[in-house]
């Protein structure tokens, strides 16, 4: 019996029942596990794989989008910078022109004003001269008449001249 047990385990005989039972049990186990364990598990693993691949796609997409946006921004910044430079150049040019204009105008104006002032001064001087001339003439006449009227001492004469001149000049003024 011992020798036999080493040869065929149970020791003789084909246990058809065991074969039958093992087969049935395995098929039942396979079916049950497929329904209750493997199918849901494979589902969730597939879901995860899908999620990951879609996330990778989305990441790829957003990366390209970001790159595009960056390129766009760069181009825009470049054009904006160019534009700003242009504007500044234009403004500078314009300012130069304006400065030149203003300077020219100011120069001309000052020239004009100077001429006018000169003219005016000359006129005023002429007028003053003529007035003075007139005054001097009339005063001379007046003084002469006074002198003739009175015989005067040297001192009196001096005093009179002073009085009259100052008085006359003051009144004239």
């Amino acid at each position, binding site marked *: *019996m011992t020798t036999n047990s080493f040869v065929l385990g149970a020791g003789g005989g084909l*246990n*058809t*029942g065991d074969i039958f039972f093992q*087969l049935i*049990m395995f098929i039942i186990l396979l079916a049950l596990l497929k329904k209750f364990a*493997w199918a849901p*598990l494979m589902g969730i693993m597939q879901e995860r794989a899908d999620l990951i691949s879609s996330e990778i796609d989305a990441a790829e997409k957003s990366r390209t989008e970001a790159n595009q946006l960056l390129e766009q921004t760069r181009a825009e910044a470049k054009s904006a910078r160019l534009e700003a430079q242009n504007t500044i150049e234009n403004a500078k040019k314009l300012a130069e022109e304006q400065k030149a204009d203003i300077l020219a105008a100011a120069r001309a104006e000052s020239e004009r004003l100077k001429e006018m002032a000169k003219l005016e001064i000359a006129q005023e001087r002429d007028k003053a001269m003529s007035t003075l001339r007139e005054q001097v003439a009339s005063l001379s006449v007046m003084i002469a008449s006074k002198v003739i009227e009175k015989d005067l001492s040297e001192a009196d004469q001096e005093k009179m001249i002073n009085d009259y001149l100052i008085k006359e000049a003051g009144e004239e003024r």
Partner: protein
Amino acid sequence: MHHEAPLYDLPLFGGLTMTFNLANVLMITIASVIVFLLAVISTRTLALRPAGMQNFIEWVMDFVKGIIKSNMDWKTGGRFHVLGITLIMYIFVSNMLGLPFSIVYDNHLWWKSPTADPAVTMTLAVMVVALTHYYAVRMKGISEYGKDFFRPMWFMLPLKLIEEFANTLTLGLRLYGNIYAGEILLSLLSASLAVGVGGHLAAILPTLAWQGFSLFVGSIQAFIFTMLTMVYISHKVSHDH
């Protein structure tokens, strides 16, 4: 040391009887229930971010997926995924069952590995080989399947036929032999060596070592059985040989 198997003859029609080894029936049921519970409990709370037992069961799935992928492309092999996981888990659990202890009641051996019985392992092996033929016919057509026996030369036919039987026998008996030998040695150590205090002390170390080795052997055998299943299937199913 040796114990009887609890046999039961189920009378069928016409005087035929079907013999059940009740220990096998019990252990097959227990192994199946453990595998079922393990799988169902692991997959009760499924989440996109796996936690706890889901990690383990997903590792098993990926492991079997790796076995299949090393033999055929996933488009063909995907349908055998369920078979592969169930096989590897069932055989692994069966191999482990006999390791921690065995139960003998009334001189009948009740608790053992179900895979320590040739009837059980040969059933699995024949089932696998039958499946390879079934899928070969289904996926390549009956004529292509038949022609495969004459490739690469017509005189290869006897070898091809022998190969089928050899495959079946080696697949089933390799598993049986490994597990049965492991259990025999364990029972020898625990029953024959562990006699008296000195015997018990002497038996501790080799028993521990052999149990550890049997753990390794049981895992390897579950892996080999699944691997060979996929090898045979791919051999039958693939077009390019």
